[in-house]
């Protein structure tokens, strides 16, 4: 058990204890409600925090949970009066509250799984708006679906069995669940996808699956919260699961820090306290002879202002992405460090072959009929002037981009187009021209995410991979805080984490100074001792390419004009012409200082 979790659990149980000491039913109700809100906010955070996608639709699942729990738990007689048209299966049963609660939550979790599959196909902004749709749809189903609900009217007479103590137990359980999910394999993968979708896909992470699972787990918790709500308050109607609660829950989550369970709990606490205070002054009051008039909706204004202040001053929320554990002097939370070998069938022979690749953008042909093989165990350099199609070539060869004609094959297997995930699983690792790390994850989490996503028949250890790029001492640092050169190296480490057969490096030395480039060249050279690893380097740093490569391919205006050894390339007049051009066309001259002939001669 970690220190931070113990403290959060004690906080919940302490609140329940407070209710017992004070003894007043009003206090007990407030505290139970607060603890249920903790369940709800934490549940919302499981999706919003891990995936980075704001959901407006979660209170729908709270509502379904409340209705279902009420129907499952209510005594038959009362049920007959409230819901005369209920199907016999539901009309005849009356479960123990705990059983009813869990049945409802599991059911909603399964609904969430299906709905999550639909939502996870959409990108962030669209998914958010689709969840708005979900909220409206479910609300109108609750109002209109009078077989299972009472329309807009309230359901009443639900047994009020939730005491502050039970609510505290539930809140503690949910906090532990949320914390477990966050650091579990799928939580890690979801968080990686949140940071950078393109890099996550290229690291073999299924964004679809990780988001779907996060959605399902979080709807399960929402339904649990909804069921507890029904069993605590006894009376509820559809309007309680609409925009009002959506707004409060989101405000709590954002104020506390969406990417942290600790943040979710503290946000719930802060906003609940604020609301409780404002609720008392809302009807107006007198202070020292001055009477303050009633302001209906003061709690909404207070919550809104707290939210806006957070967004202006501290958009990551009070806790940001850190947990209580990170600020306590106890052991830090760390991801799994070792990944055992597993039975996977990967092609162990054969090359990464690009055949007759043609890619056009509108009328511009970026790559034209290019055929190139990256063999096992070789370092292949790919050079060419700006705009010659290098990046397009690499994007098509790593499954990121679609192309018009030709094929990409690994061994004898033709690869699908625009499926970076499949390429990673087939053993193609890559880096990006613009660094794409999982910025708010730690260095070791960056590597571990890729390892967790792609199984290998070799056992792997996070620190071994980090050691390859000299980053083992920085394992617990946040990736964002690394220097430029370190970030480039971390990207290589992440690509190596999938135990690739082919490593594609897109301008790894771009923007580096001489010292950093030298260190990088040393690292790339050392990768030769990984058995059977074929490396493709696209770069402008000609001296580095000439030194490292076994073969060099030259692209010019989308065509491969040469594939030769470095020695031959140096003497190839066509290459020289493509690179250094005719000086007459200075207007369109795109040469950069690295391409001075003197540098080539080194």
């Amino acid at each position, binding site marked *: 058990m970690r220190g931070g979790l113990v403290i959060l659990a004690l906080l919940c149980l302490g609140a329940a204890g407070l209710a017992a000491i004070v003894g007043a039913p009003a206090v007990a109700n407030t505290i139970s409600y607060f603890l249920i809100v903790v369940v709800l906010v934490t549940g919302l955070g499981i999706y919003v925090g891990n995936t980075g996608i704001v959901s407006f639709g979660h209170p729908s699942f709270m509502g379904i949970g409340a209705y279902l729990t009420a129907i499952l738990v209510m005594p038959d007689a009362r049920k007959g009066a409230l819901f005369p048209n209920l199907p016999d299966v539901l009309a005849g049963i009356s479960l123990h509250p705990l059983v009813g609660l869990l049945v409802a939550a599991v059911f909603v979790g399964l609904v969430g799984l299906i709905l999550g599959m639909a939502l996870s196909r959409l990108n962030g902004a669209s998914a958010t708006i689709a969840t708005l749709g979900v909220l409206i749809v479910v609300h109108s189903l609750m109002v209109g679906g009078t077989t299972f609900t009472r329309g807009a009217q309230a359901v009443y007479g639900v047994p009020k069995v939730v005491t502050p103590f039970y609510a505290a137990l539930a809140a503690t359980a949910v906090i532990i669940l949320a914390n477990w999910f966050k650091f579990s394999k799928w939580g890690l993968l979801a968080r990686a996808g949140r940071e950078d979708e393109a890099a996550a896909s290229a690291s073999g992470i299924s964004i679809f699956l990780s988001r779907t699972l996060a959605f399902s787990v979080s709807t399960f918790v929402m339904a649990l919260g909804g069921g507890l709500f029904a069993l605590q308050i006894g009376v509820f109607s559809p309007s309680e699961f609409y925009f009002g609660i959506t707004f409060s829950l989101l405000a709590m989550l954002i104020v506390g820090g969406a990417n942290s369970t600790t943040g979710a709990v503290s946000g719930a606490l802060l906003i609940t306290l604020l609301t409780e205070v404002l609720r008392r002054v809302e009807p107006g009051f007198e202070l020292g002879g001055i009477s303050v008039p009633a302001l209906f909706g*003061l709690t909404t204004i207070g919550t809104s202002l707290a939210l806006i202040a957070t*967004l202006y001053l501290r958009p990551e929320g009070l806790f940001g992405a850190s947990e209580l554990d990170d600020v306590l002097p106890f052991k830090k939370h760390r991801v799994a460090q070792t990944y055992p070998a597993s039975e996977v069938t990967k092609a162990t022979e054969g090359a990464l072959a690009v055949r007759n690749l043609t890619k056009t953008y509108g009328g511009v042909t970026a790559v034209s009929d290019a055929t190139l093989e990256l063999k096992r165990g070789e370092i292949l350099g790919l050079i060419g002037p700006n705009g010659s199609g290098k990046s397009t070539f690499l994007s098509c060869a790593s499954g990121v981009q679609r192309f018009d004609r030709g094929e990409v094959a690994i061994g004898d297997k033709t690869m699908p187009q625009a499926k970076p995930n499949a390429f990673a699983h087939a053993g193609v690792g890559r880096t990006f021209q613009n660094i794409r790390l999982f910025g708010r994850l730690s260095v070791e989490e960056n590597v571990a995410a890729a390892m967790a996503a792609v199984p290998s028949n070799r056992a792997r250890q996070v620190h071994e991979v980090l050691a390859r790029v000299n980053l083992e001492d920085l394992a617990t640092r946040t990736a964002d805080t690394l220097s430029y050169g370190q970030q480039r190296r971390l990207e290589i480490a992440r690509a190596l984490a999938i135990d690739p057969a082919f490593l594609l490096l897109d301008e790894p030395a771009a923007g580096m100074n001489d010292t950093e480039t030298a260190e990088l060249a040393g690292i790339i050279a050392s990768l030769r001792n990984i058995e059977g690893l074929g490396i493709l380097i696209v770069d402008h740093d000609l001296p580095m390419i000439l030194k490292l490569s076994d073969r060099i391919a030259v692209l010019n205006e989308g065509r491969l004009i040469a594939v030769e050894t470095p020695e031959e390339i140096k003497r190839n007049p066509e290459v020289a012409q493509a690179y250094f051009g005719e000086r007459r066309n200075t207007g369109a001259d795109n040469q950069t200082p690295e391409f001075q002939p003197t540098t080539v001669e080194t």
Partner: protein
Amino acid sequence: MSELVAQQVLNALALGGVYALLGLGLAMVFSVLGMINFAHGELMTFTGYALIFLSATLGWPFFLAVFAAFAVAAASAALIERVAFRPVRGASLTTMLLTTFAISSILHVVFQNFISPRPIAVAIPDWLTSTAQFSGLRIGMLQCISLGVTVVALIGLTVFLRFSITGLAMRAAAQDFSITRLMGIPANRVIVTAFAISGLLAGLSGFLWVAQRGSVDPLMGFVPVLKAFIAVVLGGLGSLPGAVLGGFLLGFLEVLLRAMLPSELLPFRDAISLSIIITILVLRPNGLLGRAEAVR
């Protein structure tokens, strides 16, 4: 039968036009700033209040009051941008989205406390709500005006975006805002113009909405804007023609469902239309006219 179809098509065009105007206003801001603006609906509501204040309280002629209300909508959009949204400019999608959501909630409360929590009737001139029989077709004046306003607004906006420098800058900003700024286009001008146009569009649709309902209440703009959002996503987030297409599709879908659904399913009209749209989205994740972004 054909009259009935023609009638429904007319209804759909009128309703779709309002969604298209709303969607266009939302897409305008989204394409430039990447901001999903929830407070758009409150601009609609505010237009209604301005209209009431100017025509009933101050006694201005109806026409003048309407045009002044449009100006108020445009100006308040620019003002909200300046006061509330500028501090989060360039922040993450989530941060901007929640800021607009909070502003929208505050405006609800402000309307409720300082104007009225209950609907206020708007004195709509009789000629505006009159209808004409036309070979079996019942054509409402308001429908014609809806259509007319939509068409004029779309043409006007197209002309502005195609032929003015600011319009060109805005189209460029919609493609890539940072590059546009590097080309020497002042960010503030583009953003304030986007908000003002978006506010004007909210004003137009607000007027049409109010004229239809005959009253204004604090939450009036909320639901139509939510639907318009969904229409925008259906068309393709960030695409202006997509927003218009999505708006009209939503209008057609709603009118079609209203006409075709058996009465016991009518309460589920919104649920069905939104579910259909979400299903289309799941099949076409980038919307009808949207594109996926390039990865480097």
